[in-house]
């Protein structure tokens, strides 16, 4: 071994990991220094009444941080999901915090205040212990994203390690822009659930390379289902969010491109299983109708 420090290792040691931060710290790191105020925070003791009924562990913020502040001087609300609590799942309170904040951001815009939103997706989707209220709140989140994105870009970030699944992956699909790390995964149905519903031949939940190859951050960006694949680096993630906000609201959101995707799907050979390469060939963003 030489005494010289490999510059790559040096860079890695100095890197400020976003993944290792909790939800509150992530929100703080994105917003301008000193500008963050948490709303409906843990001192309000918003414990899930439904988990308590089932004698399950509750948390005073129900796993979502609503952080209002400035991002590069612009009024911004960051909605950060705590992946370490209940798998980042959406219960009634967690979902209401996100939906309610997005609704107020849209109201701000109608009153001439250009509030923007960033959602930090770290979620398995509906909290099954609050099943139907989780699902209902996700419908409300989706409605609020579609409302707000008329005025300002809504940016979704999924850093990992939980990723973004279930009904919240649909919410992510409604965002104006989507930022993923290589560690992140984005998909509707988790591998375990597909294995349960369709059998191990359809999807082997133990095959990690398969999961990341098909649904990982890099693949999603190369295939145009997300907009930026970034390193697990707080500064890079913040800079990417700023760059995407600067692009403004596009003429058409990804979720509005039905004709484009229907044309692509006609090319899929469904007699064989899909490989990452097949998806790259068919969803080649350079052939998009923009």
């Amino acid at each position, binding site marked *: 071994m030489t005494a010289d420090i490999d510059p790559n290792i040096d860079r890695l040691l100095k890197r400020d990991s976003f993944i290792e931060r909790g939800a509150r710290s992530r929100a703080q790191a994105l917003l301008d220094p000193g500008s963050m105020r948490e709303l409906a925070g843990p001192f309000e003791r918003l414990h899930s009444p439904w988990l308590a009924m089932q004698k399950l562990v509750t948390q005073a913020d129900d796993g979502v941080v609503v952080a209002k502040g400035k991002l590069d001087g612009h009024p911004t609300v960051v909605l950060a999901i705590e992946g370490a609590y209940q798998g980042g799942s959406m219960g009634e309170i967690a979902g209401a915090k996100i939906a*309610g904040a997005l609704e107020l951001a849209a109201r701000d815009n109608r009153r001439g205040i250009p509030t923007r939103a960033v959602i930090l997706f770290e979620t398995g989707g509906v909290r099954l212990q609050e099943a139907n209220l989780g699902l209902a709140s996700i419908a409300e989140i989706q409605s609020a994203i579609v409302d707000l994105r008329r005025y300002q870009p809504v940016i979704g970030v999924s850093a990992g390690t939980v990723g973004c699944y279930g009904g919240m992956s649909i919410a992510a699909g409604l965002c104006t822009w989507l930022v993923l790390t290589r560690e992140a995964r984005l998909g509707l149905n988790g591998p375990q659930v*597909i294995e349960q519903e369709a059998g191990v031949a359809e999807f082997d939940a133990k095959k990690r390379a398969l999961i990341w190859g098909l649904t990982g951050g890099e693949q999603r960006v190369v295939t145009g289902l997300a907009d930026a694949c970034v390193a697990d680096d707080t500064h890079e993630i913040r800079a990417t969010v700023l760059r995407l906000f600067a692009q403004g609201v596009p003429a058409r959101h990804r979720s509005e491109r039905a004709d484009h995707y229907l044309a692509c799907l006609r090319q899929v050979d469904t007699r064989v299983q899909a490989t990452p390469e097949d998806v790259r060939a068919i969803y080649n963003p350079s052939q998009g109708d923009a």
Partner: protein
Amino acid sequence: MEQQKPTRGAMWLRLLTGGARTVHDWAAVQVCDAVLAGQPARYIAVVPDPDNRFPRARNGEVGLVEGWQLARAVQEVVAMDRDAPAKRPIVAVIDVPSQAYGRREEAFGIHQALAGAAGAYAQARQAGHPVIGLVVGLAMSGAFLAHGYQANRLIALDDPAVMVHAMGKASAARVTLRSVEALEKLAATVPPMAYDIKNFASLGILWKVLRLNDLALPGERDIALVEATLEAALADILEDRERDLSGRLNGQHRQASRRVRELLQAQWEDAD
């Protein structure tokens, strides 16, 4: 092969549109233009397609193609009425067993297809189109989010076969590390976990629950009741200044949803 019985969704689409021709030659996503309260309206249902190219979407599941077709069907209505002062209503006839679970579906981004559908419905509603969801069978999870959950008003039939839920019992048990029996026991005491329509109604998300005489073969009176309720929902939407989903927050079991919104609103401006 045995002749397939039409599903509840297919049956109600036919009954409500007088057997109108479908607008598209799509097998699973059935789109019919008919009338509601004497005015043009679009009715949409998802039905089984045993020959679906995507094998995991043959039983009425909302898959990749179905999600984007739903989006198309709704976008067309918005485009048709872009310059019209009166926006035509959309009726989502809901009988969807689930989203499609498969490797292809994940690979090609089924989440984005369902976002296409959910987003289109939300945009139609926000553009002023009255959107009514009529739950006549299953309303499960991602499929329901894509087809109907964005409606201004939701109506459900009171029937053991009508069910709203986030995940089938076997998978929900696996994910929550419980047995199916334990899950069912909890569902009996925790209203949002229940699978039946009565418990779901207690959440306050439905606008009306309808009791029919004959669910399998609805007679004239049953059909008239459903039609009258759709018309009443339409009138209720047109009287309402709001085009959002706030009407769902008044139920006895949504206290926490209201409390969170009150807190956020009270603290929102103070945060500046």
